[in-house]
């Protein structure tokens, strides 16, 4: 995905793909609405459709295989154990974020972090994310409001999210997993200098 994402955000790629798919389906529906009123012997009509169908099935298999191979090239999982320039421990709670530089292995009750943190630009940052109570989702938004990275904050488990902030500025953390009454007010801030 990396070549495309230089030109378009992932959201735009998803939107364009889905729009193209929807338009194609609408075109097929319009064609069928019109063609159904014409009469043809059912055997010859079905033969034509089945001929097209076998081409379609082979095409979709090839497209699926190519897309799978291409999209598997850059997945977040390979970075779970990879080394990073800076590590940040993140503990989510109802309803806020605690962040602190370094790897924290102590009791979560004793974790002292802040909902704001300063991090360097253009360095690989590994967020080690967990939760002290229920499931949350650690989602990073840039200043334009684009969701740029996320991982779940699950109690009893640690998810490692690596991200490189390529631009200076203020990034916001929102919770993307419903976690109770004030779920929509769980905000954190990352200052990239």
């Amino acid at each position: 995905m990396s070549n495309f994402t230089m030109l378009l955000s992932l959201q735009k790629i998803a939107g364009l793909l889905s729009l193209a798919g929807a338009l194609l389906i609408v075109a097929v529906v319009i064609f069928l609405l019109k063609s159904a009123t014409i009469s043809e012997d059912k055997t010859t009509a079905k033969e034509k459709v089945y001929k097209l169908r076998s081409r379609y099935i082979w095409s979709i298999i090839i497209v699926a295989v190519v897309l799978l191979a291409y999209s598997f090239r850059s997945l977040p999982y390979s970075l779970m154990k990879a080394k990073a320039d800076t590590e940040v421990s993140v503990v989510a709670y109802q309803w806020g974020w605690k962040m602190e530089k370094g790897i924290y292995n102590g009791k979560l009750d004793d974790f002292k972090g802040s909902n704001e943190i300063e991090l360097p630009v253009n360095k690989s940052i590994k967020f080690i994310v967990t939760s002290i109570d229920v499931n949350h989702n650690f989602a990073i938004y840039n200043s334009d409001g684009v969701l740029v990275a996320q991982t779940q904050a699950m109690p009893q488990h640690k998810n490692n999210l690596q991200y490189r902030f390529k631009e200076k500025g203020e990034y916001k953390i929102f919770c993307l997993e419903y976690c109770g009454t004030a779920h929509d007010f769980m905000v954190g801030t990352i200052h990239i200098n």
Partner: protein
Amino acid sequence: MIQIDSTEIKKQKKLALTWAITFLILFPVLITLGLLMRLRQGEITETGPSEFFSYMTLHGLGMAGILFTFAFAALWYLNSTRYVRLNLKFGWFLYFLILIGVVGLLYGTLIGKFGPGWYMLYPLPFKGTFWPAWATKVSVISLIILGVAWLLGILHMIYALAKQYGGLTNLLGWQYLGKKENITEIPSVVLITTISLIPGVFALIIGAAMLIMYLLQSFEPSLAFDPLMMKNMVMFFGHTLVNITMYCAVGWVYALLPEFTHREWKVNKAVVYSWNASFFFILFAYLHHLYMDFVQPTSLQYLGQVVSYSSAIPATGITMFGVIAQVYHAKMKWSIIPLMFLFGMAGWAIGGFAAVVDSTIALNSSLHNTLWVPAHFHTYMLMGVVLFIFGFLFYLFSGKDKEEKDGLGKAGFWIFVLGSYGFLLMFYLGGLNSVPRRYSNYSGLEIDHVRETGAHLAQCAALFVGVLLVGLILMYLSLFCKLIQQKVSTKESNS
């Protein structure tokens, strides 16, 4: 093939009509809850968070529940009036059992404010809740009752069909794959009933196990389970149930569309391969819900994407091309029933396409838990399953002439489709603008663009819900007229 006598058909129809009327009462109530949510997100009303999240919970559980229940009831009706004897008394027993579950759930959510979302992601119902502990117990017990009713109903139907058609392997259509000439032929709806409902058995067993674990913890708070395992369980349960709702609905399209195109749609090797492949895909597709849980074994993440992509092949290549082969140059009338089936297929395809996009791990990291998710599943539920259900309802409520002119129903249909796609578009645009899902309002989002876009789109969505409700009212009026006509003609023929 057995002959079902007309008295039995009449009795089964009465049961189906009771299911239908119950569905028609609950459906707009649940839409109204959705509308209230969008009005709050659009800052038009000031519903508090506890009300919002209990509405959200009831809307999700209720919609998934009534759509699956009606899909099951429709298959019960078709099978029991055409191919197999199903126990009518047992059918009524299931109806009342499900009604008890529904009443319990309404009480738990509306009175008790039970609000952890449909998926009640463990351990949310036990930590920091705004609802009392009794509401959790009532709601969980109600869900168990519903699950037991569905499980019993499925097992009864599969058992009766297996007995009728010579065993489970015949129901799965495996006899078509050998070289024998004299094989037991099965109707397509029987094959699809089996393929759709057997994964439902697995889902309901896992779901019941999970709900019992919840119940145990609600009585004994010191208990604790692994959240990752619980998430796998709830997603397997929920995703599979919603997934098979669509496949059940496709079952009656296979059975009823040929009545309008006058072309047979029989089971053959391709159909058997396709539906057996779907059987496998249904069981593993849920894995795409856990992409952002990086601790989930990576092989399962890959499997999730491979299966999600693969499921599109039989669905489009066999079923949707099957519809094309049915209608292409068929010299047919586009009366309201086939029209709903065609548009239902389109809704399934459009929503399915957006789902495949979301099931791409690399894209999911930008779409997961944004409004893109409700966008795609509302598309194939509202513009897929719901249209299939209304197509079936128009079939059930119509007299002998299923192709009669129905200006009122058609006007309702077009307005409903227009309103629905407008409503759905707002979800898609929200997803593309990174607006989070399951927010009672967006005022806490400290980025102007996301906050304002989210609220503005919610306002537009509420407007479109108004449009789709107008369409729905017209369709209801048309159905009501048909029901009255049917009653009158039955009385006339009796006298």
